[in-house]
C-alpha cells in the first residue's frame, strides 16, 4: 500500500506533529512486517535464481533467470493462469450478487436479527478444508447426495471425472464458504449509505431499483471495492478446495497448487520460488488493476469513514 500522499500546501505544525506521531505508532508494526514478510520474500527472490533441490543441496547451481523462462514458456503455467482467473472471476461475480442480497437481508431484517445474521455468517466460520471435504462428499458419486437431488443428472455421474463439472464443484464450495465474508463487507458499506438521501429519493418517487442504482451503489463504491479486492485476491490464491477435491486432476490446478507441488511435493526450491515470485507479482497486478478500475482512493475512503 502507498503512504498517505502529503498535501502540497504549507503544513501546519499540528499536522506535522500528528504525522510524526503516526510514524512512531506504526514503527513497531513496520519492523515486524519487514522481519516476517520482507525476509522470506527476498529469500524467495534469491532462491528463484538457482537450480536447487532440497534432497540434493550440494548440487545447487546458479541458473540466472532460466527458472522464469521455463515457467513462462510452459503451457502448464498458462493453463493454470487460465484456471485461476476463471475461478476468480466466476466466484467473485456470483458472490457479489448473492452477497449483496444477504447484506440487504441482514441490513433490513427487523425480527430475529441476531439469529439470521449469525446463520448467514456460519459458513465463513467453517475451516476451508472441512468445507471442501463436505462438498467433495456431497458431489461424490458413492456417498454424495447431489446426483440424487438433481433431476437432470445421471445417478452415476462422476463430477470429478472431467474438467468443467469438477470446476463447478470447486466454485460451488468456494462460493458457499466465502459469500458470508463478502456480505459482511457489503453490510458495513450499507450502513454508510445516508438515510436522508434514501428518504429524499423515496419522496421524489424513485423506485426500489432506482434507489439501489442511483443512491445505494454510488455511496457504497468504496465498500464494494474493498469487498471485491479482498475476495478477488483470496480467490486468486485458491488452494484448499482444489487440494482436497481434485488434487489438480482433470486440469483443475490453480497457481497456488502448482507452486505447492513444486516446492513441497517435489522439493524443487528454485523452480518453486520462481513460481511464488510470479504468483506474488500476479497478485500485485490484480490489486493494481482493481484499484484503477474502481477509481477509488483508499485513503479517501478511510477519511470518509
Amino acid at each position, binding site marked *: 500500500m502507498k503512504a498517505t500522499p502529503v498535501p502540497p500546501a504549507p503544513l501546519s505544525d499540528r499536522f506535522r506533529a500528528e504525522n510524526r506521531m503516526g510514524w512512531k505508532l506504526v514503527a513497531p508494526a513496520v519492523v515486524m512486517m519487514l522481519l516476517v514478510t520482507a525476509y522470506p520474500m527476498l529469500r524467495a527472490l534469491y532462491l528463484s535464481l538457482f537450480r536447487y533441490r532440497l*534432497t540434493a543441496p550440494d548440487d545447487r547451481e546458479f541458473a540466472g533467470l*532460466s527458472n522464469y523462462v521455463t515457467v513462462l514458456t*510452459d503451457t502448464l503455467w498458462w493453463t493454470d493462469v487460465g484456471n485461476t482467473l476463471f475461478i476468480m472471476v466466476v466466484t467473485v461475480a456470483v458472490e457479489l450478487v448473492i452477497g449483496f442480497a444477504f447484506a440487504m437481508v441482514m441490513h433490513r431484517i427487523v425480527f430475529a436479527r441476531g439469529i439470521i445474521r449469525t446463520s448467514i455468517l456460519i459458513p465463513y466460520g467453517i475451516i476451508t478444508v472441512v468445507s471442501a471435504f463436505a462438498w467433495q462428499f456431497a458431489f461424490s458419486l458413492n456417498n454424495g447426495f447431489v446426483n440424487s437431488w438433481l433431476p437432470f443428472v445421471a445417478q452415476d455421474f462422476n463430477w470429478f471425472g472431467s474438467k468443467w463439472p469438477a470446476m463447478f464443484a470447486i466454485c460451488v464450495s468456494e462460493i458457499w464458504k466465502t459469500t458470508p465474508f463478502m456480505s459482511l463487507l457489503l453490510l458495513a458499506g450499507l450502513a454508510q449509505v445516508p438515510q436522508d438521501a434514501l428518504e429524499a429519493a423515496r419522496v421524489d418517487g424513485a423506485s426500489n431499483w432506482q434507489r439501489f442504482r442511483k443512491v445505494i451503489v454510488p455511496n457504497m463504491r468504496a465498500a464494494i471495492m474493498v469487498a471485491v479486492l479482498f475476495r478477488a485476491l483470496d480467490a486468486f490464491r485458491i488452494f484448499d478446495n482444489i487440494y482436497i477435491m481434485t*488434487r489438480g486432476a482433470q486440469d483443475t490446478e490453480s497457481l497456488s497448487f502448482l507452486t505447492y507441488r513444486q516446492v513441497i511435493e*517435489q522439493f524443487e526450491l528454485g523452480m518453486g520460488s520462481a513460481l511464488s515470485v510470479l504468483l506474488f507479482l500476479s497478485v500485485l497486478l490484480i490489486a493494481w488493476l482493481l484499484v484503477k478500475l474502481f477509481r477509488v482512493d483508499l485513503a479517501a475512503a478511510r477519511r470518509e469513514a
Partner: protein
Amino acid sequence: MNHRASLTDRAAAGGSGRHSHDRRRAGARAAAVAAAALVAGCGDDGTGKPTLTWYINPDPPPPPGFAGTFGQPGIAERCSTDEYTIATAQLPTSASEQRIQLARRLAAGDESIDLVSLDPVFTAEFADAGFLWPIPPERQRAFAEGVLQGAIAGATWEGELVVVPMWANTQVLWYRKSFAEQAGLRMDRPVTWDQIIEAASAHGGKVGVQANKYEGYVVWINALIMGAGGEIITDTESGDDAAIHLDSAAAAEAARIVRKLATSPAAEADLSVSNEGTVLGPFAESSGFQVNWTFVYTHYPEESAVRGDLGWARYPRTVAGRPSRPPIGGINIGIGASTRYPEQALAAIACITSLENQVRFAVETGQMPAREAAYDAPGLTSRFPADLLSLYRESIQEAGPRPATPYWATIVNAILSRWHPPRSVDPDTTPEQSEQFVRSVLRGDSLT
C-alpha cells in the same frame, strides 16, 4: 543371493558410495547442533534413560474387543528396555504426506527423529539425500538374513541396505467366486488383464483398479509395464541422466490395457478418481474383480457375505505368456541421520523387525511379514488360509518393484500428467509423449 554377495563386496571395498552421505551428514549435524542449543532438554526424562522417538505410519484400527497396545505402538512397548524407551509419533495417513513431513524435518537435521517407518518408494530418495543414518555393513548382513527378496530390493540403495524391512505388502487379484464361475473363468490358472476385463464386461461385472491422479495409479502402470517385460526407468543411480523407457512395446501394451479397461463397461463410474478405498464398496455390493493390497482380506469381516465369496489369485498378466510382476509395498524401518542414539536405534530395529514381532504384527493388522520364516509361524497359519499365505509369499518374492530412484516423486507427477485420466490414454501416442515429457521434466525444462 546375488544381493548378499554385493553387500559383502561393498563392505570389502570400504563402501565407496557412502562418502557423499558422510559429508552431507556433517552439514546436517552442524545445523542440528545449533538447533539443539534452542531445544536443549527435550527428549530426556531426567533419569538419563534416553527416549527413542519412532515416527510411524498409522496402523489400521484395532478389531473390536482388542486388549493391550495394538500394532506399532505395541511393538514399541515390547521393544523398550532398561536402556531406552521407544515412544511413537504418528505420521499422516497418505504415503506422499509422510514423505513430505519427514523430508522437511530430516533435511533440517531434526535430532528428535530416531526411528522412522518408511515406505519403500521414497527410500532411495532419502538415502541419496543423506537423511538416513548408514547401517554398518555387518549389521546390514544380519538384518537381511532370511528376508524375502522383494522386500530387500525396496530397502536397498547403491548396494547398501539403508533401512530394514518390517512388513511387506503386495497386490493380488481379488474376485467373487460366484462371479468367476458364472463367467466361466478358470481362476486356478494365471489370468490376463484381457480375460478379466472381457469376462467382467460380458457379465455385467466391474474390474476395480486405482486410477486417481496419485501415486497409486503409477503402481498399476508400473505393474502393467513390468508384466510385459519392460521397465519405466533403468540406470537410476546416475540421477537425472537415468534412462527412461516409456516409449517401448511394453509401455504400449500397458497403455492398451489401461485404455481397454477405461473404455469398457467393466470400468467403474468413478474410475478416474478411484483409489484403494473406493473400490471396496462396489466390490462388496456387486460382482467382479479388484486388484488391491493385502488388507482387503481383513477388511471384509468374517461373518460378511463377501468373505464367503471372496477368491484370490495372482496379479493378472499383462501378456499371456509371461508371469505377472505384482506390485510391492510395505514398511521399512530407518534411522534418522541426526539421531543422538544410533546404537540404541540399531538395537531397537533388531527387536522391531524380529520374527516374533513380525508375526504378531501380521496377526493383529493383516500386514504381511517381510521374513520368509514368518509365513510358517503357527500364529499366522491359523489366522489366514494357507493358499493365501503362499500367494502372498510368492507375490512378494517375484514382485515388480517401483524403480528405486531419488526422482520418483517427480517422475510420478510427470507420468500422471500424461497418463491421467485413464480414458485419455492412447497406446500409439501416450508412451512416446510421456517419455519425452519425463525427460524434459528431469532436465528442468518443463514443469510438472
